[in-house]
């Protein structure tokens, strides 16, 4: 066993997922270093979101193993993985339309503190939790809309809330599934700035289409093609790799 500091914070070994005859993940072995800014790229349908669903327990793998800090979590339910420190955002917003940002973040923070089952105390009566919610609202620039129903927030704010609520779970590993997808150019920088400002001790796995974002953010890049890990390395290496260029130019690549 490697020393603790060398244990990847999140690791998959030969992870498989088949839907009938379709192979969505094929023997993916990937290690994510603690504190990394890791990006996962690949053409449409490469299996990026499937991989995130496997990591978070929304899907069960057909084979292989997932380890968090060296401990297997392959068969844990999603909410247990969240408590152990894996949080995610969704490519398509998954928010609570009728709740406000305050309540949304309050929920996540309460769960983390184990007071989500508390049925007697009134919401908002724990000073530690409200202070944390206030801090999150500021970090993710949501203070001005914090008492609005989520459903009526501008899309950019909803995307910020999507990241904020995942971050509120206090993750060791944060999985961002195309955080800026669909956000108008003018609101984009706000999202990128908050992602760039995430604390260094939180490991980030970013799934993204936009190469500008990937190369400005990542210190390591994995390329997924047809459910397989295709290339992995530092950004400059991946950028120079002719095979990656071939894939992104849409040319068939063999072997």
């Amino acid at each position, binding site marked *: 066993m490697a020393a603790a500091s060398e244990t990847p914070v999140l690791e998959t070994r030969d992870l498989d997922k088949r839907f009938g005859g379709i192979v969505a993940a094929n023997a993916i072995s990937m290690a994510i270093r603690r504190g990394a800014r890791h990006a996962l790229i690949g053409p449409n349908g490469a299996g990026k979101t499937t991989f995130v669903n496997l990591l*978070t327990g*929304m899907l069960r793998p057909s084979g292989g193993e997932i380890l968090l800090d060296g401990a297997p979590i392959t068969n844990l*339910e*999603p*909410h247990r993985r*969240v*408590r152990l420190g894996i*949080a*995610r955002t*969704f490519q398509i917003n*998954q*928010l*609570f*339309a*009728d*709740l*406000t940002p*305050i*309540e*949304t973040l*309050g*929920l*996540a923070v*309460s*769960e*983390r503190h184990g*007071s*989500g*089952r*508390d*049925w*007697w*105390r*009134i*919401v*908002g*009566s724990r*000073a530690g939790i*409200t*202070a944390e*919610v*206030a*801090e999150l*609202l*500021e970090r993710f620039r949501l*203070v001005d809309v*914090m*008492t*609005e129903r989520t459903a009526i927030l501008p899309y950019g704010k909803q995307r910020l809330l999507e990241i904020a*609520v*995942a971050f*509120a*779970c206090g993750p060791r590993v944060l999985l961002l599934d195309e955080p800026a997808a669909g956000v108008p150019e003018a609101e984009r920088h706000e999202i990128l700035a908050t992602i760039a400002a995430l604390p260094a001790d939180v490991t980030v796995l970013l799934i993204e289409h936009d190469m500008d974002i990937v190369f400005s953010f990542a210190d390591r890049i994995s390329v997924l093609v047809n459910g397989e890990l295709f290339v992995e390395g530092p950004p400059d290496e991946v950028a120079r790799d002719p095979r990656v260029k071939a894939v992104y130019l849409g040319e068939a690549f063999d072997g």
Partner: protein
Amino acid sequence: MTRKADTAVTRFLTSRARIGPFETAFWLAAFATIYFLPGRHLILTETAIWGLFALSLDLILGYAGIISLGHAAFFGVGAYAAGLLAKYEIIVEPSVALLCAGLIAAALGFATSFLVLRGSDLTRLMVTLGVSLVCFELANKFADLTGGADGLQGVAMAPVFGAYRFDLFGHTAYVYTLAWLFVLFMLARRVVNSPFGLSLKAIKGNPLRSSAIGIAVNWRLVAIYTLSAGYAGIAGGLLAQTQAFASLSMLSIERSADVLLILIIGGTGYLYGGLIGALIYRLLQDYLSDLTARYWQFWIGLLLVAIVLVGRERIGGWIRSVETQIGRALRWPASTSSADQGA
């Protein structure tokens, strides 16, 4: 800045749980009827029981989004439990017996909650309906115990706390029922305003995201379904105790449908819907049956269609907005700060 935001967050979150002027007035009026409407205590008792029953349904439908067409199963089981406990003098003290009836119904709720965890609204409708049909036929079959189609006869109620006899005019019964309603309402109010209650609304809104922020979705649903069944059981027990009788109709699908109707009339998801719905239903029943003795349900049906088409939460919304207006007029603390921003 953070300090200011923190204060705003605390104020916003706790404002929901604050008792507003409408609520105070509502309960003052309810308790005032003890003195001012002595001639109506029989009807008011029945109305309060319907209100409590509808409140129990609101806990799962309005907060957790679980639709049920068989909630009478728990009501009826609570009724028979309370009736049998009194008839065979197993537990003589009515309030303790009622609590036991509630616990028995809650146990049934817990056991059947696992059936409603998964699936669509249609699955849930059918499963809850199925459970209530099974309970109905069991009560029908074991006539030696339940009295079958004749109902449970020979229930003699002991005085409450050994002192207050259930009288012919229903005065004791009304005070007893109203006291239970008030206590259980305040408890439910506490529960829905807790982090647990908020997590139910989250599950109702988006179960996928709920599990993605660490909420154990299934266990929360089991918990609220169990609590709701217990509440329904106590409502049923109250009816059995105050009428010294239990019957198959308390388990029937008509009762399940009526309670859903009452809740929809009153509006879901703010707790008062059940109580207000029960009142409106009762008043309409009285008024309409004076007007057209045999066809009053025609108008109820028409009202139901209208309400659902206008929007089922509209009535509740109107009341809330009136409350906000009154609150502003009285300079009561605004219930949301978004109202402030709009000004």
